[in-house]
């Protein structure tokens, strides 16, 4: 099925999938940080490639990106994107540093950030797994610190072999009342979002 045939009902279901996954991930992050973590209502973004670079506001904004391949019955990518100050904030809490300490990117801090990616992704996907009964697992995380556009293009390129539009299920995590931690993207390939919708009985 072509992506353009998805109707409002399908999109609502995909949004709900984002809600359930991200809700679980937010809880896991809150436990890890011992702080309140909230999330915004997920957004479904269906885009042509020319728009992908601009998703986070600026293609040149420096961000930290943690990318995991999704394997099993659902395939695609998970991308967790943090602004640099948010990455610094997370690392300081995890390492027990003073909150305002400047972060150095070294083996330990990068590994801590990857672990955050691991935990968030693991809880997001296990919620989806429980919901659908499908087998869904993350691969090992990889990390890059660079322009948002260059990082966001990575999952799109892989999906570009089979399609001209990509579907990103985006959820923003917030700490406390207004501190943005980062944006979490589930990017299923075309077969996978159809499988998700089918499993939930939404395709008839």
């Amino acid at each position, binding site marked *: 099925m072509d992506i353009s045939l998805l109707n409002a009902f399908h999109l609502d279901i995909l949004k709900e999938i984002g809600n359930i996954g991200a809700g679980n991930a937010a809880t896991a992050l809150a436990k890890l940080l011992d702080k309140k973590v909230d999330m915004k209502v997920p957004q479904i973004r269906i885009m*042509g*490639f*020319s*728009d*992908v*670079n601009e998703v986070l506001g600026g*293609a*040149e904004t*420096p961000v930290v*990106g943690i*990318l995991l391949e999704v394997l099993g019955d659902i395939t695609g990518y998970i991308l967790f994107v943090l602004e640099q100050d948010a990455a610094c904030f997370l690392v300081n809490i995890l390492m027990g540093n003073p909150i305002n300490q400047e972060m150095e990117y070294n083996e330990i801090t990068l590994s801590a950030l990857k672990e955050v990616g691991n935990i968030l992704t693991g809880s997001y996907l296990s919620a989806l797994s429980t919901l659908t009964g499908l087998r869904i697992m993350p691969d*090992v995380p*990889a*990390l*890059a*610190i*660079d*322009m*948002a*556009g*260059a*990082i*966001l*293009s*990575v999952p*799109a*390129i*892989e999906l*570009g*072999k*089979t*399609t*001209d539009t990509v579907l990103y299920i985006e959820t923003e995590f917030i700490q406390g009342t207004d501190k943005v931690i980062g944006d979490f993207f589930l990017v299923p390939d075309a077969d996978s979002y159809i499988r998700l919708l089918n499993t939930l009985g939404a395709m008839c």
Partner: protein
Amino acid sequence: MAENSIKVGMADLKQTHHPGVLVTLGLGSCVGIMLYDRKTKNIGLAHIMLPWSHQAKNNTNKAKFADTGIRQLCELMLESGCRKGSIIAKIAGGAQMFSFSQGSDTIRIGQRNVEATREVLRELGIPIVSDDTGGNYGRTIECYSDDGRMMVRTIGYGVHYI
């Protein structure tokens, strides 16, 4: 960024007459290919994502691939009065943004994009006068029609002209 600049998105290509500036933001493993006619000062830019159109299931968008994208850009330039003999190329991008332990195909896509780009330009007989490819960092490029210079801007590796 110059005021009269034209943005070229991912899997997109544009060409313009002098004076003009073509810009593409946040190139990762994609490759930006600038074609420039030294006589007419026409300038073109293609932002390709994948190497070969025949390797993909969906190849309707020509600008997505190195082979079809570069050829289409070249045709556009010839149609607007350029001569093949005076067209030169500059290329940038083809980075590997994420490094995984296992080197799957996806991950080396940047390198494959650069290889395909070089091959297609060689087939077309267009010389690559300068390049800035590979590495593990993103690039923003701006191409100027007055002298065909290409500015490459990075995070952490500065700004330079090729």
